[in-house]
């Protein structure tokens, strides 16, 4: 990865330079602090996505197709148009040429969850208090800063890249190697998930088709390529021997699940065909992340 080496040389600057850059960054971010309510918060609602989702001002052609006789007499034609457009915008689909194979993998992962991961996460959750598990989560998140940083830069999100650096330095030092999350106290230092799949998405590359990987779960061809790229920037990849690296990844997964026991269950419960529902949800969730 070229970006990897570029970054390494970037962080190899003399300490004096780093402190100057940091100072500038801190001032810049602090300057954004009082604008925060107006800038950061609406971005969470992501106006561009709203445009896409709602497509206001229905076209005259659409008006004609509205039910002139609304049997329930409850909703106005305008409301009905709005409702249908909102539903339509959320009804995202993706090509799934390997569906039979994907279903097998889905089944495998489903059993893996109920037979292995969930019991493990439950036991772990019972034994380890929440603050410790949160610390572990913070630690792993801090460790994967290079992945997010590189992707912020690749997407031209330089402010977010700056925030990633400040967070990393703050959480690695004041946060004791990343177990703590002092940066959390500053809303302007909040960051979003960034990965190479999303970066490709911002370059206009579509999802391609859907893939379910054993152990790793739902993905698309685009996101799978991204996942491979991101691995190079994830320090855990370089842990030797490989078994140890896999064990650490598995532990991270169990730690993550310990916060979400029940979420997968309810999603399954709420759908007629969980496989398809999860596929649709995955794609929608990814599309939203690309938009942000």
């Amino acid at each position, binding site marked *: 990865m070229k970006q990897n080496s570029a970054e390494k040389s970037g962080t190899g600057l003399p300490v004096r330079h780093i402190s100057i850059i940091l100072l500038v960054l801190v001032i810049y971010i602090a300057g954004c602090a009082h604008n925060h309510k107006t800038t950061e918060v609406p971005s969470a609602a992501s106006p561009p996505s709203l445009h896409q989702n709602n497509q206001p001002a229905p076209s005259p052609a659409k008006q004609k*197709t509205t039910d002139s006789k609304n049997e329930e007499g409850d909703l106005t034609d305008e409301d009905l148009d709005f409702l249908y457009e909102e539903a339509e915008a959320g009804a995202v689909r993706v090509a799934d040429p390997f569906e039979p194979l994907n279903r097998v993998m889905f089944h495998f992962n489903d059993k893996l969850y109920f037979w292995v991961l969930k019991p493990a996460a439950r036991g772990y959750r019972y034994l380890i208090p929440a603050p410790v598990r949160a610390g572990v989560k913070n630690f792993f998140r801090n460790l994967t800063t290079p992945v997010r940083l590189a992707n912020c830069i690749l997407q031209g999100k330089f402010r977010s890249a700056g925030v990633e650096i400040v967070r990393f330095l703050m959480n690695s030092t004041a946060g004791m190697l990343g177990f703590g999350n002092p940066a959390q106290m500053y809303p302007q230092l909040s960051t979003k998930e960034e990965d190479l799949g999303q970066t490709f998405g911002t370059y206009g590359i579509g999802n391609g088709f859907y893939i379910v990987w054993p152990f790793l779960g739902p993905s698309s061809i685009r996101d799978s390529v991204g996942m491979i790229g991101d691995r190079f920037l994830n320090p855990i990849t370089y842990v030797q021997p490989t078994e140890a690296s896999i064990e650490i990844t598995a532990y991270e997964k169990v730690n993550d699940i310990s916060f979400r026991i029940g979420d997968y269950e*309810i999603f399954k419960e709420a759908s007629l065909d969980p496989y398809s529902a999860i596929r649709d949800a995955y794609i929608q969730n990814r599309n939203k992340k690309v938009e942000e």
Partner: protein
Amino acid sequence: MNIKILIPACMVLMVLLFGASNLAHSAQPMDELKGPVEQFIKILQDPQYSDASKKDLQREKLWEVARKIFDFAAISRGTLTRFRWKSFTPKQRKDFTDVFTEFIGNTYFDKIQGEYHNEEIVFLNQEMLSETKARVTTKIQREALEIPVDYSMWFRKGSWKIFNVYVEGVSLLGNYRNEFERFLTKSSADELISELKKKIERQKKGEGEAK
């Protein structure tokens, strides 16, 4: 000060004040959402329902609040395409609305009644899409996890009501529209209704198939 300036200035001021108060009066979907959410949490934390035998009573209370803020009729209708809805008979429409409402209600109430761990709801923003439509962004704070939940709301019949929910960017209406469309290309409306009824029955009997 010259009276010629003063009069228009007063008029502008009045318009502004009147306009602002009018806005404050009807256009606060976030505030109208906060009330029911707080009631919800109160019911969930209320120790009088902690006994297993009181869970049904608690469920009823939750329904009461939910019915006020969720536009279930619109949500049900939005999960079907225009074409499908038209192809349903009035009775099927009514049955579908009832059964789907009960289904999503039960599914989520089962979850929050079973696993409520003092999650906090943080209200982030409200964006007015028009005078009567808004998007309210919130997040659920659970231990070290944040789950973004956005609500599409509209002003109907004198209050703001939810007609769509996004959990982590996934649209409830959109997802069910796909699901039901897939189902209805192979099966009939009555089969969809009975399938949902079956799921409700299974939920009532205890834990559903997901466990």
